[in-house]
């Protein structure tokens, strides 16, 4: 039986863009459910976050869910580190759906080379100045505020970066949509900061804490990716199962073919693995900021979504190429291997932790 809490989402068309879904979530008081004690500053509530992502995924497109996910998992908790009135007001607006946040980390440089980012933050006694460009940022075309990761010193050291809150309406902010039919509904775009002048209190967190805060909060985005991946795979598998059991083949249906059943069962296995991993690692990520656990989830989500969507798309045959069909969904879902930490980045994190991960698999006292 549908939960009446989600009625405001049901009132929207399935084609609603991310900004509209975000406004509905906040307007209905649902957004705060993603956080412990309904406060973004206290951290993610894994079950609440999974509920919201699943509810949104079940009703709306991948780009719309992306728009919501990045704000729920990362942007709001990061914004909550700001103590100044401007940050508090932006946070209140975001929680109630009146403000939309764009997490502007990826620069004109490669997203896998974050410490090479060029956007500069000049810190004066009582003012800030931001100059640079951020590319391929969700919610850019609809944002009321940008959370911008910028460097306040040259060089790659992890202490050389700082988060700053930039109102979208500030002088010197220019937005343009990304050339992407697949992700237009996420508000994806590019934003330029041309000598944007701000008050000193627009710094989020502390000067020099840009990458430490990013490391902490990107972990919850990776958890969100795994939870969303489970929801997405489950619904795709359910749709595919209906298709297979209703599609005549020979004396029965496609579902009666052993090759089809086994292929489908392998997908079920993969999503059950991701589900189990999400449950096991949710608290280490949400409560203890375990970066290796977060990378594990992200790597697993990328691989699982890719496998399940590819195999289900194959099982749909020519009908998969219908406009808005599973082949289009599959192309959008490639996001799981790219956004929030590309496969190569998170697998690198796992490799770095190889010795610890192997040690954790040992059964004490059993080895020679």
């Amino acid at each position, binding site marked *: 039986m549908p939960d009446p809490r989600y009625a405001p989402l049901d009132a929207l068309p399935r084609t609603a863009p991310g900004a509209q879904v975000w406004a509905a979530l906040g307007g209905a008081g649902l957004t705060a459910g993603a956080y412990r004690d309904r406060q973004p500053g206290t951290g993610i509530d894994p079950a609440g976050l999974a509920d919201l992502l699943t509810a949104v995924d079940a009703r709306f497109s991948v780009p719309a869910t992306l728009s919501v996910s990045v704000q729920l998992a990362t942007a709001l908790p990061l914004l909550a580190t700001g103590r100044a009135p401007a940050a508090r007001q932006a946070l209140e607006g975001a929680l109630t759906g009146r403000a939309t946040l764009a997490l502007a980390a990826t620069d004109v440089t490669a997203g896998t080379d974050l410490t090479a980012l060029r956007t500069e933050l000049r810190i004066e006694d009582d003012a800030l100045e931001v100059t640079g460009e951020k590319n391929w940022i969700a919610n850019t075309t609809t944002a009321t505020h940008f959370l911008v990761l910028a460097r306040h010193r040259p060089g790659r*050291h992890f202490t050389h970066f700082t988060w700053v809150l930039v109102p979208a309406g500030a002088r010197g902010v220019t937005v343009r949509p990304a050339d992407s039919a697949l992700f237009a509904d996420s508000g994806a775009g590019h934003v330029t900061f041309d000598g944007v002048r701000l008050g000193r209190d627009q710094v989020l967190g502390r000067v020099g804490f840009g990458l430490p805060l990013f490391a*902490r909060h990107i972990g919850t985005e990776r958890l969100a990716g795994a939870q969303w991946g489970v929801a997405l795979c489950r619904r795709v598998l359910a749709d595919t199962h209906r298709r297979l059991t209703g599609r005549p083949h020979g004396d029965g249906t496609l579902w009666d073919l052993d090759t089809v059943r086994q292929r489908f069962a392998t997908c079920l296995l993969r999503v059950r693995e991701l589900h189990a991993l999400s449950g096991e690692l949710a608290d280490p990520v949400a409560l203890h900021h375990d970066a290796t656990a977060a990378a594990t989830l992200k790597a697993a989500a990328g691989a699982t979504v890719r496998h399940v969507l590819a195999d289900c798309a194959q099982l749909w045959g020519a009908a998969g190429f219908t406009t808005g069909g599973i082949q289009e969904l599959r192309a959008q879902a490639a996001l799981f291997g790219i956004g929030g930490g590309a496969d190569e980045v998170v697998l690198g994190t796992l490799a770095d932790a190889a010795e610890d991960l192997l040690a954790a698999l040992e059964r004490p006292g059993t080895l020679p």
Partner: protein
Amino acid sequence: MDARFTALLQPFLKHAGPGETALTPDTDLRTLGVDSMQAIELLFAVEDTFGISLPDEELNDTTFATAGSLWNVIAAQLPEGTGDGPAGQETA
């Protein structure tokens, strides 16, 4: 460098060989395995363990270069008499 600090630091030194358990103020953190991700975790561990915030102006590569440079910044934030003083010749 006090015992709390050396105990905190030891797990981050992944490249220290089995015979290299002695920390000195000159111990090069990056060479012994404290990369950017490790350094971020080390920063949080330092602030949590000692209940301090490192000053913004001390958040730089010089502070995180050696065990001694990091300890000196930490010690400066500790209430007088609660640390073992500036990094000198002592080892742990």
